[in-house]
């Protein structure tokens, strides 16, 4: 199955992926309207330690602990993609706590949010990959 992978060697730490992610999942057609003066809740995060930078998003684990621990049945895995049903999510954030990659995060409102590979939004394929200026983020089979 195709997944989002990050090559640390080429990650510039520009954080464009975070903004492209937030935009893609905003439902808006214009980035300025979507993100201007707003706190963003991207589903990919650039981890930084000094000069090392690395974007991290959901690994869509084979046996995802977030799905196992979800008390409301909001998290599920379908066709290899771990998804979250925000209507079911009660906001206990156990998933945020247990995800070994820190790839699930609290968002606005009560629900948690995570990468769904842009399959549900208008982008169609991961916006972080499309917008990465240095091909550090790729969407491929491995």
């Amino acid at each position, binding site marked *: 199955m195709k997944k989002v992978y990050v090559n640390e060697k*080429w990650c*510039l730490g*520009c*954080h*464009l992926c975070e903004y492209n992610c937030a935009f893609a999942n905003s439902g808006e057609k214009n980035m*300025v309207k979507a993100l*201007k003066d707003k706190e963003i809740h991207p589903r990919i995060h650039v981890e930084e330690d000094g000069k090392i930078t690395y974007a991290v998003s959901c690994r869509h684990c084979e046996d995802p602990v977030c799905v196992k621990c979800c008390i409301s049945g909001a998290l599920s895995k379908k066709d290899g993609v771990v998804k979250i049903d925000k209507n079911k999510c009660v906001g206990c954030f156990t998933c945020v706590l247990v995800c070994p990659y820190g790839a699930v995060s609290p968002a606005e409102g009560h629900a948690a949010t995570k990468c769904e590979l842009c399959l549900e939004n208008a982008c169609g394929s991961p916006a972080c990959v499309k917008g990465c200026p*240095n*091909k550090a983020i790729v969407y491929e089979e491995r």
Partner: protein
Amino acid sequence: MNDIYINPEFEVVRNDSRCIRCRVCERQCANEVHSFDADGKVMISDESKCVNCQRCVSLCPTHSLKIVKSDCRLKENANWQDQTIKEIYKQANSGGVLLSSMGNPNPLPVYWDKILINASQVTNPSIDPLREPMETKVFLGKKPSVIDRDCNGEIINNLTPQIELSMPVMFSAMSYGSISYNAHKSLALAAQKLGILYNTGEGGLHEDFYVYGDNTIVQVASGRFGVHEKYLMAGKAIEIKMGQGAKPGIGGHLPGAKIVGDVSKTRMIPEGSDAISPAPHHDIYSIEDLRQLVYSLKEATAYKKPVIVKVAAVHNIAAIASGIARSGADIIAIDGFRGGTGAAPTRIRDNVGIPIELALAAVDKRLRDEGIRNNVSLVVGGSIRSAADVVKAIALGADACYIATAAVLALGCHLCRTCQTGKCNWGIATQNPELVKRLNPEIGSQRLINLMTAWQHEIKELMGGMGINSIEALRGNRLMLRGVGLNEKELEILGISHAGQ
């Protein structure tokens, strides 16, 4: 000393109604122009540091930035122009030689733009390159003047080593040190895929790039940095660099700050030491001396590698080329005065040397007149900007062209002309690891391949229009060219007629 006389040259114009404060501009500017003020939640610019490389402009996701030339100018004066006065201020402040990068930006004549190409109409058919074969392959090297046959009448191969190119363009010399590892890798990868050659420049060959040897020209310049037997054997050809179009008559100076890690190892000099290439080769003071070096290099490589001698286009270039053609060199490379550089004294770059178009025409004619044109192939560089320039150069008598500025542009260079600072935001002219990684060779090489493929299509189209189906038939075919707006002397030197004739 902080110079109060120098105002910022550029203005950073931010359309604040679009800025989403993502701070990409801040993170991507190695010159530290942009910063974020957390209290006021606004982006701030320190324009005095801006070099107009436009990295921020390119990466801004909402296109809220533009860099414009500051209109804060000194009182207009046709003789003492703003730039001239600012240079006086700079030197009055520093006491130093002014440094510049890339090619001569002054409005001196570009003869390519005053030369027009012919096309077939009615009496001779043009050729459609999409339907008919069209040959862009060229071979560089000395061509035999006689056909030798054995006792059975079979032809004896008396051909000296040749360079085979899929199209008449090569990437010219840029050293590892002046440009980054990733820039070199992009060039090497692209040259291999395209079936052309790139050139190490005077920086040696990084051990990782020996695998691209068949697509590499290894350069031997006056500093002899990184030259050893394995290096000479690694390349497809060896180039002796006598001069460079951007700075004829002077050597090179790579500051110690750039001699780090692998650059130091590849150049075979200690870390932090300045790499100074002398102005002359200290063993070459005549054509005879040059001949000795040509044959030393041939001897060292068992006569398997063609030797290129690269010179800057200067006055009397025809006589110089005639000497080189008799020195045993297989190829002469001539670099015109608009050629690029990683750093050169401004006065030299802007005032020394001659246009490549005139140099090429003069050299080709001289070598023909003397009956030694077949001794050598001619490669020309110094601002070949498009496929049309290539076609015009071939028709003026070149065998192939060298491109470097066009190649680094394909890699993302925005021609801000501040290579000498080592803070290239595009990851090209820098050795800072955080900046070098901005150029992913996978992307870079593909962009170079795209550019060359596009040029090859255009060369074929232009040749087809003239009813010519191979580069061989175009070479030196000056009847295909006409000048516009040129005087008698210029036309005479170029060896072409005026448009309408």
